[in-house]
């Protein structure tokens, strides 16, 4: 702990010492006064002896791209590193800690917490991985008939059945056809396979769009606060400006058009050209599902202001409340009568979330509509430099968008698995929400969707002072204390941004259902002792 603090201090000193280069100084539109975390927080505190300011080396901390230094990604940041060190140490010093395992509630990584993959999907993938299986009689005893049929269908769509070959840079055509059909079945409006760009997860698609949209720090992207820090990191990496719009915690993280308008005008007055509006629906970390009316207002806003709508819809299959339903922005726009000429819309989907949780496979796509062909050519060109996304992920994406149907052999087991996972998530969301709301000074909006709870914690002044003394943001201070006392890993709200002066943390709903009571107990006990220590 001591070495870590020294590391922090060293970083602060180094930061002030670092010469300000003559090139881009990226301005963030809303500097967060409440965020004293140094730009480059030290991770490897065992390596303090290795000096980085060796001026004879061409590539050092002083000479790398400043955009790299500026960007942050708290989901796998500081707290997680401490947790990993603790986890390693736990193996040898079991008795030194008041807990016997680290529970990672920092990241939406379901299968790392024992969620099982969908059997049908993995059957198809295994058969496509090793096509020789399809020639063997024994295979019929090991695999369901419809998974064999689907594998054949997919392989017939791949030239030479070669799953090891680079595909078309947008992804295999036949798989895009399946995805387009899936989108149409979902929305009731047609989708064009040529609008689909398959990517290694949804994140690379977001990066591609930022690359196209951002030419300088004068280009702004409207992002929800709180937001999933891929957006802030990507904007920083590409040298643009994040234009925040605040979601309203008091109204269940509602999105007000008046707030969008206000922030847009504010940005314009500062010489920022706002190029796009990013909306995460269902929200991350906030979990809210937008109402259709809200979505219509957003579409109109983008149309009127000439903004690209970046619709992050990766949690579209994670909705837990009966009074809300997911509607894609494409569906909403089309049902308003808006077509290709009316609104530029990029919709992102991923195989990492939903009930399939295939994070490690890296699959996803963006559906790009409402752009002229010369712009689309540029999108294609950027995609082509990386040749293509991984084939296995592409196959999964097509399965996610066209899963087994009633009547298929695997349908019953597929539905059972899917509903089992989703209903369990809904239960866990409720249990954790209720538990958090019982804690002193904590209020937690319900998780309508996605995979997270984002409670607001009203920290006592004493705690805030202690945090400041430790040169840490108060929510980070709380989360570190929690980690050290309970082994539970959360992400401080500052990692997602929040209204200045408010504090939150993000906790996933993903630990196994039978572990939840223990987690609730530990959290409750810790919180009580923390408040006892710092109560004003």
């Amino acid at each position: 702990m001591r070495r870590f603090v020294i590391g922090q201090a060293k970083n602060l000193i180094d930061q002030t010492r670092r010469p300000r280069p003559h090139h881009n100084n990226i301005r963030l539109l809303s500097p967060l006064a409440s965020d004293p975390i140094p730009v480059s927080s030290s991770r490897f505190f065992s390596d303090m002896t290795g000096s980085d300011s060796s001026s004879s080396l061409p590539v050092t901390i002083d000479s790398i791209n400043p955009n790299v230094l500026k960007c942050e990604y708290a989901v796998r940041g500081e707290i997680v590193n401490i947790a990993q060190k603790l986890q390693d140490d736990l193996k040898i010093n079991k008795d030194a800690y008041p807990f016997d395992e680290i529970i990672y509630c920092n990241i939406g990584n379901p299968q790392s917490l024992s969620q099982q993959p969908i059997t049908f999907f993995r059957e198809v993938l295994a058969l496509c991985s090793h096509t020789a299986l399809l020639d063997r009689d024994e295979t019929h005893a090991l695999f369901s008939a419809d998974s064999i049929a689907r594998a054949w269908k997919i392989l017939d769509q791949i030239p030479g059945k070669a799953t090891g070959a680079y595909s078309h840079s947008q992804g295999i055509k036949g798989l895009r056809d399946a995805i387009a059909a899936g989108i149409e079945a979902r929305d009731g409006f047609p989708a064009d396979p040529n609008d689909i760009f398959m990517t290694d997860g949804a994140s690379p698609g977001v990066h591609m769009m930022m690359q196209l949209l951002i030419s300088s720090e004068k280009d702004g992207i409207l992002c929800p606060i709180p937001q999933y820090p891929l957006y802030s990191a990507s904007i920083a990496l590409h040298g643009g400006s994040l234009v925040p719009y605040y979601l309203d915690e008091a109204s269940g993280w509602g999105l007000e058009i008046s707030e969008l308008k206000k922030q847009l005008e504010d940005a314009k007055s500062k010489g920022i050209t706002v190029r796009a509006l990013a909306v995460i629906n269902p929200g991350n970390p906030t979990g809210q599902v937008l109402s259709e009316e809200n979505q219509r207002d957003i579409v109109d806003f983008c149309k009127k202001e000439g903004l690209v709508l970046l619709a992050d819809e990766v949690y579209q299959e994670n909705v837990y409340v009966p009074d809300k339903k997911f509607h894609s922005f494409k569906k909403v726009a089309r049902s308003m009568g808006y077509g290709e000429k009316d609104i530029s819309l990029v919709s992102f989907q991923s195989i990492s979330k939903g009930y399939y949780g295939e994070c490690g496979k890296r699959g996803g796509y963006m559906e790009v509509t409402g752009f002229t062909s010369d712009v689309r050519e540029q999108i294609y060109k950027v995609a082509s430099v990386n040749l293509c996304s991984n084939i296995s992920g592409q196959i999964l994406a097509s399965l996610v968008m066209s899963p087994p149907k009633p009547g298929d052999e695997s349908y019953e087991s597929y539905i059972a698995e899917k509903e089992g996972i989703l209903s369990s998530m809904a239960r866990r969301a409720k249990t954790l929400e209720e538990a958090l709301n019982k804690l002193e000074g904590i209020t937690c909006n319900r998780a309508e969707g996605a995979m997270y709870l984002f409670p607001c914690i009203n920290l006592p002044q004493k705690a805030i002072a202690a945090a400041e003394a430790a040169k840490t943001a108060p929510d980070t201070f709380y989360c570190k204390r929690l980690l050290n006392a309970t082994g539970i890993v959360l992400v401080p709200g500052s990692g997602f941004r929040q209204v200045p002066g408010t504090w939150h943390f993000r906790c996933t709903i993903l630990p196994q259902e039978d572990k939840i009571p223990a987690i609730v107990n530990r959290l409750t006990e810790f919180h009580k002792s923390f408040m006892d220590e710092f109560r004003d």
Partner: protein
Amino acid sequence: MSLKALDYESLNENVKNCQYAVRGELYLRASELQKEGKKIIFTNVGNPHALGQKPLTFPRQVVALCQAPFLLDNPNVGMIFPADAIARAKHYLSLTSGGLGAYSDSRGLPGVRKEVAEFIQRRDGYPSDPELIFLTDGASKGVMQILNCVIRDQKDGILVPVPQYPLYSATISLLGGTLVPYYLEETDNWGLDVNNLRQSVAQARSQGITVRAMVIINPGNPTGQCLSEANLREILKFCCDERLVLLGDEVYQQNIYQDERPFISSKKVLMDMGAPLSKEVQLISFHTVSKGYWGECGQRGGYFEMTNIPPRTVEEIYKVASIALSPNVSAQIFMGLMVSPPKPGDISYDQFVRESKGILESLRRRARIMTDGFNSCKNVVCNFTEGAMYSFPQIKLPSKAIQAAKQAGKVPDVFYCLKLLEATGISTVPGSGFGQKEGVFHLRTTILPAEEEMPEIMESFKKFNDEFMSQYADRFGYSRM
């Protein structure tokens, strides 16, 4: 009327400036023709499985089991999977934190990185630190990550060989940096002359460019040459003197078709040179599962190893990697299998060796067939493909052809390659996509078409070329070197 949200004018200039010919004009035209029913032989990209090369059996067996771990619980699994594949699948699954579907460490699974480090150690004879090895979704992603770190603005220059694999030029464009070319000597078997390097650097500096890094592609792409140990020493010394980080693209290290210059890694040479160089020269080495005899392009698996990169810089690179969460886990397993293949005594060893040797020996033969085929044409000069997967013949074009190209609004080699495509279905990439000396034209093709189809392909090419030459013949001879 609504404002146009993103029109061509307002696009990031860097995006507009970037070019990637490998999937550019020729490829798009070939795809169009294919849709119209024409038989196309795609030799535009190093994509072995697309041209009939079969995947190696063992890794596919292992990964299939990892995709569907429930198979491992089935008592009959031993009937269709060999015991060593089953054991290996269990091994890799145990390295993951939840199977293929869980994000791994953002640098890649520690267990796999350890296997990569052990491979590097066996290969080079020097220790390798898994903490300095990052797995990536293909080597290209790694190259982009590193260049993104190095390039701050347009004053930062990156030394890139000409001809080069256009990932480098495209990425430098996208990142807003400056490409500083150094020319390889075609008459000297695409050799690298340090004097050329010095000239390029001097010229760049005189224009206010800070040269930050040097790229070498060894074996070369598109040129295929294998660098000698002496050459590598010169390069490393040069990087030390000029304070450049060396980016060693070694993705073709398994593809060697001559015995005079076996592959030696830049890392080995650097370590052999001893202190102070071995402690001062910054080096990042790239490798992949896409090439070699594996050819698993579609998996998107690669890694880079950092040497003499300071800890805090490594942290920053790690931080950027973490934004993408993790490289895909299936490909990480392919990488593990590639660096620790079946050993003598393993059940699958004989089959593995047979399959690998078969591929490599055939590639060696095809390299020869193609080189000789090109050289049998009067106006074509082709250096032998010492390594990698490509042939890069120089096509001497008569001035009438060059004029015709101009009139058609095309660069001469694009003009030639389009005509070649339309006449024969052979889809190549014009040399202009890789860079070449002014007035000198090339095309790049791969040596990957099936061996039994090669003679016919070369016949087809020769026929087209001879017809083209007689159509555009003039008294004044060909384009000069």
